[in-house]
């Protein structure tokens, strides 16, 4: 019997290697797998490349992972925020490499990795500094930039409900990068607030089929779930 449910965050993350590329879901706080990030800090893997839309807020979650000095490079679209002081400090000190990617290209490059696309031409960023050095091409009268897939060793995503085959559904706009990151990593680890029996998820509404998920770990909702906005979500 296949059972992808893992007993603890620690067990779910145990085999993450130094030097890994780790995708982390979330858009700001929504969909950020806080418990898995905390687990990665406790785990201590270093020299990581992190893929996330942002570069951490406040002093917790991704910001804390950066602060712990475990990250060598971050690939993201929107690092600078009012409360991105940990990223800012590391970046200014030259301790953190930044690959800045327009958000839609970031999403599409992740999706391309999951879908086996070798590269694609995107109109986004043409003529801008973020396309510098990239191949360009005119197609049917419009200019495009060649963009490469972003693959990962590990994806950490936050979902709402999962089952033992790894099927996932999300909650509201916390879905964001979860489904595409799950498809782009060799090992996808999902935190869920609820584990249900096989067949309890309607096959019409499964967002991430279990083929993309290797481990599922249940975490309490209180720590990261929907709630009145917290300070760090600003």
């Amino acid at each position: 019997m296949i059972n992808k449910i893992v007993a603890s965050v620690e067990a779910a993350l145990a085999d993450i290697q130094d030097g890994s590329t780790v995708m982390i879901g979330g858009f700001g706080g929504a969909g950020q797998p806080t418990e898995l990030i905390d687990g990665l800090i406790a785990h201590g893997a270093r020299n990581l490349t992190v893929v996330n839309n942002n570069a951490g807020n406040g002093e917790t979650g991704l910001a804390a992972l950066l602060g712990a000095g475990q990250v060598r490079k971050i690939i993201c679209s929107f690092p600078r925020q009012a409360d991105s002081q940990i990223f800012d400090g590391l970046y200014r000190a030259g301790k953190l490499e930044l690959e800045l990617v327009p958000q839609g290209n970031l999403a599409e490059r992740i999706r391309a990795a999951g879908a086996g696309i070798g590269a694609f031409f995107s109109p986004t960023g043409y003529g801008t500094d973020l396309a510098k050095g990239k191949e360009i091409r005119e197609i049917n009268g419009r200019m495009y930039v060649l963009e490469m897939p972003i693959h990962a060793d590990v994806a950490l995503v936050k979902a709402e409900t999962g089952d033992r085959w790894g099927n996932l559904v999300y909650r509201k706009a916390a879905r964001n990068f979860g489904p595409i990151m799950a498809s782009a990593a060799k090992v996808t680890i999902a935190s869920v607030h609820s584990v249900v029996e096989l067949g309890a998820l309607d096959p019409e509404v499964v967002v991430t089929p279990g083929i993309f998920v290797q481990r599922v770990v249940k975490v309490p909702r209180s720590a990261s779930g929907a709630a009145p906005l917290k300070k760090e979500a600003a």
Partner: protein
Amino acid sequence: MNNWNRDQMAARVARDIPEGAYVNLGIGLPTLVANHLPKDREIFLHSENGILGMGPAPATGEEDFDLINAGKQPVTLLPGGAYFHHADSFGMMRGGHLDICVLGAFQVSVAGDLANWHTGAVDAIPAVGGAMDLAIGAKKTYVMMEHLTKRGESKIVNACTYPLTGIACVSRIYSDLAVIDITPQGLQVVDIIDGLSLAELQKISGVSLKQKH
């Protein structure tokens, strides 16, 4: 002469959004447009983080941390709205399915080039977010901005000096002084505040302007 204030600018933009339009409102000033959309029109708001049919801010105490907009402020979903993942959300944008996108700007050139993501300052930490996708994705990209910088320089320029967000992508500018179309025949003034002449506007702007007919 009285410059339009932020709410007047937002109302002016809102007036031009037709019923049934699919619209993305950028972070900052454009967000205000949502407050001025005519109540008798059904207009569909898209948020880059995977929402279509976005509604107004929730009542205090009703905020849901999983339902936020691109600016990470709590929002609601209208009946008939839908959620989807990030690749689908930006596919929607890049694929030309949005009718209108309203963005803020540092500079807009007479050719419709947009600079709104980076001042280019050497020590600035860059952050682009969805700006470049939004700039080139919608059928029409509107810019909503103060006409002048705090130092009194025109933000409408012959060529952007700030790093570009997109090329030839802006079709209309809503400023606190005027509404200006960017056309292959140059800039055409659609609307102007009371007490300001076209000649005066052109002088302030430092670019060639014509009255739209």
